[in-house]
């Protein structure tokens, strides 16, 4: 059976939600692993959960990015294994250099906790392959530092290489200023590395993976986890 690691950092607080979805809903062998205990590359996929690792000191994710667990995660990424960073996990992946750019303080200077609409921009990643390009997902965000930043010319490169995975959109499924909750460049909510096997996103799919948690009763976040697990089955088949 495939095994997934949810890596726990000091200050992680969405680790148990991700574990719950993966263990109980998806019925997969998922384990919660303290970051210092993750010494060998022995899992089939890695999830870096949300939270406030090391109190967001210096910059969100900057200190956790130096954890030895990132050496293991980098090794897994090199072997094409899926690596998913959610919220603070995204910030850690960016600070560790596994994903490009920076995640800065929200343009409104406030912590924003709200439901967002996200448009799937590519289905080439192990986390979106069961969705459709252009599909809208409703998934909540909860962060104070979520403004994705990269220089303009580098964003173009990101677009050309199909590394932009999710964008914040309005009711018409279009990226717009009023649907951009944090001032991210080009409404970017989630990106992947060049190979596509490392993805980071600010929204919390684990908080939208049970119908009872969603305002319209649909578990939109499941597609991220379902896609990842489907990829694992393919890899192990």
């Amino acid at each position, binding site marked *: 059976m495939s095994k997934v690691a949810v890596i726990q950092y000091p200050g992680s607080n969405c680790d148990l939600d991700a574990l719950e979805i993966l263990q109980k809903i998806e019925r997969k062998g998922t384990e919660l692993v303290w970051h210092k205990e993750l010494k060998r590359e022995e899992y089939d996929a890695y999830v870096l959960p949300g939270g406030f690792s090391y109190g967001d000191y210096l910059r969100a994710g900057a200190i956790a990015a130096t954890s030895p667990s990132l050496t293991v995660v980098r090794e897994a990424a090199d072997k094409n294994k899926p690596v998913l960073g959610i919220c603070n996990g995204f910030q850690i992946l960016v600070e560790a250099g596994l994903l490009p750019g*920076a995640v800065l303080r929200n343009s409104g*200077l406030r912590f924003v906790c709200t439901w967002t609409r996200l448009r799937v921009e590519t289905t080439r990643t192990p986390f979106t392959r069961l969705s459709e390009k252009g599909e809208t997902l409703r998934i909540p965000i909860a962060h104070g530092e979520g403004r994705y930043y990269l220089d303009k010319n580098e964003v173009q490169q990101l677009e050309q290489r199909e590394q932009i995975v999710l964008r914040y959109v309005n009711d018409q499924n279009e990226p717009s200023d009023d649907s951009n909750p944090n001032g991210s460049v080009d409404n970017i909510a989630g990106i992947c590395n060049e190979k596509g096997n490392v993805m980071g996103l600010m929204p919390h799919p684990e908080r939208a993976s049970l119908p009872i948690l969603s305002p319209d009763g649909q578990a939109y976040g499941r597609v991220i986890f379902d896609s990842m697990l489907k990829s694992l089955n393919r890899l192990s088949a």
Partner: protein
Amino acid sequence: MPLHSYTVEVVVENKPLARDPEGETIHHNLILKGGYNQVTHVRAGKLLRMSVNAESPDNARDLVKRLCDDLRIYNPAAHTCQVRIVG
């Protein structure tokens, strides 16, 4: 050579093209509102003040510059980093 203690300051701020909403808000909603119209621009950042044992001010500055790059005290995708000896 004997070591001396030097005070080194590190200032991290957003690159000119990366918006700095905190600096903008301090400028518009506090400084200009308070009537200090001669202030035309405000940039907020982060200041780290370090005490460093080194042989000379240059050595102290070089060491801090190196650690800022090594440990990613700033994220070069979005920030600039200045290192200066203040004492």
